[in-house]
């Protein structure tokens, strides 16, 4: 039962993160939303891996790998956001997709 609670929390976190990603233009908040989606997925996986007799170690290892990868991606994304603000003062993406 507890596992279901965690899995549902994970699913809701994914939903919340997707909302944030689509609805919030500020780039730092989008990075936060990415992290919410990732950790929600990991929570779901962790709950699924804890269903058996013993807790499955493989999902735990996958999740640790995933957390580190998410940190790497967040760091690069944050760096890009800061560099963009430094060059042009923007904290959201300009609307047009094409460079001139």
């Amino acid at each position: 039962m507890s596992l279901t609670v965690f899995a549902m929390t994970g699913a809701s976190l994914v939903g919340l993160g997707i909302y944030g990603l689509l609805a919030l233009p500020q780039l730092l908040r989008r990075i936060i939303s990415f992290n919410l989606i990732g950790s929600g997925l990991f929570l779901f996986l962790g709950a699924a891996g804890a269903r058996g007799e013993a807790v499955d170690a493989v999902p735990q290892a996958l999740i640790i790998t995933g957390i580190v990868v998410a940190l790497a991606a967040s760091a690069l994304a944050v760096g890009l956001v800061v560099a963009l603000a430094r060059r042009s003062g923007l904290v959201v993406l300009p609307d047009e997709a094409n460079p001139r």
Partner: protein
Amino acid sequence: MTALVIVLALPLAGALAVIALPVRAAVPVALSATALTALSALVLAASVWQGGPVTLMVGGWQPPLGIALQADGLAAALIVMSALVVGAVAMAAWFEMAAARAGPRAAFGFWPLMLLLWGALNAVYVSRDLFNLYVGLELLSLAAVALVAISGTAQALVAALRYMIFALAGSLLYLAGVVLVYAGHGTLDIGLLSARSPAPGDALALGLMTAGLLAKTALFPFHVWLPPAHASAPAPASALLSALVPKASFLILIRLWFEAMPELASTAALLMLAGLGAIAVIWGGVLALVQSRLKLIVAYSTVAQLGYMFLVFPLAGGDGSAQPWAAGAWTGAMFQALSHGLAKAAMFLVAGICIAAVGSDRLGDLRGLARALPMTGFAFALAAITLMGLPPSGGFTAKYLLMTSAFAAGQWPWALVLAGGGLLAAAYLYRPLAALFTRDARLPVHPVARAWQGVPLALAALAVLLGLLSAAPFDLLQIGRPEPAVEGL
């Protein structure tokens, strides 16, 4: 097996060495790592050719515990194509990314990033483990985004950020599918998954993974990030990004739909994938037609050319996989992946030479450039022949195979797409060709080393040779092909 290990490990080891060693050692180390890896790629392809797929259990652990790597014919072909492209890009970058031209920052960062990107590509080509593929894709995306940002302008940063957002969203969608697969089956190995007992969540998992990979492959309507990103990067980086990076996520799509979960491939889903591909061919072509910068034309052409590869899904997937035309369609799509890689890399390297020669890639500024740089103009023309799909190029073989399969399958609308896409390519490539080969030169031309000019020419020639000598790659691609159907065409 040793060749496979070298192909996987040497680019990564080269990148580590380039980072650790003093800056002056970077170029020799990177070039020798590139040469050795390219040699091993050829050895690997030869051993696949002779002995069938090469398999490697990392650490000696069998799946589901360990990770299996396998180089089948398709992976070997992509590894060789990538080695050729990276080799050419490294040669061009030797001139173009020199510290005197590109600045110390870009000159430091380009080499390790190129090698990391290559290592990630090779890792993705051979991996049979869905989570390992996720890690490989992330490495690929981060290196690719960094290569876009290397130019340092605000415009490049915007393009890199947009790319990053799409790449991250794609990764997470893919990861969601991986999570569902592991929760349902307790394994991530593609081979074990094909023999699994189906679970209700499988369709959802496949859908999520497909959506994520489409975003990474820049299929319409997820293509908006690609042209600005590929056009903002320095030309050698653009060549890598456009020729190679989308092929990795496309290959995973092939692995999922043809090997891991072929029974889930419903006709409607396959038609939708190909339909999006068809729209991409037309829409990418139309947008390429209205651009005024060479790099943007070439980048939009990537959107269009990637679309052709998706015609493989209804022609060779699902129920169609047992049909006589499946082999032709499958091979045609893979030929498209290979020949587009070679030709597109050549075009971006040409763009780099143009920028070095006249300081701009606007069509108006390129007028008459072929008079001063005939090798470069000829290279662009050869690459254009492949992208238009004219005989005897590799692009022609690809489109011929796809078209005959489409007629044999009775799915003639795809043939219209192939024909229309070829006409559009001719139209959008005519403008830069006409500008290059016009008589009146506009701007003074800085001299460009002949060796540098020879690099894209060699790549473009290879793309044409792929069509002339299509028998060998054709046979290589059949090795380890899922469900080898009756050879019909």
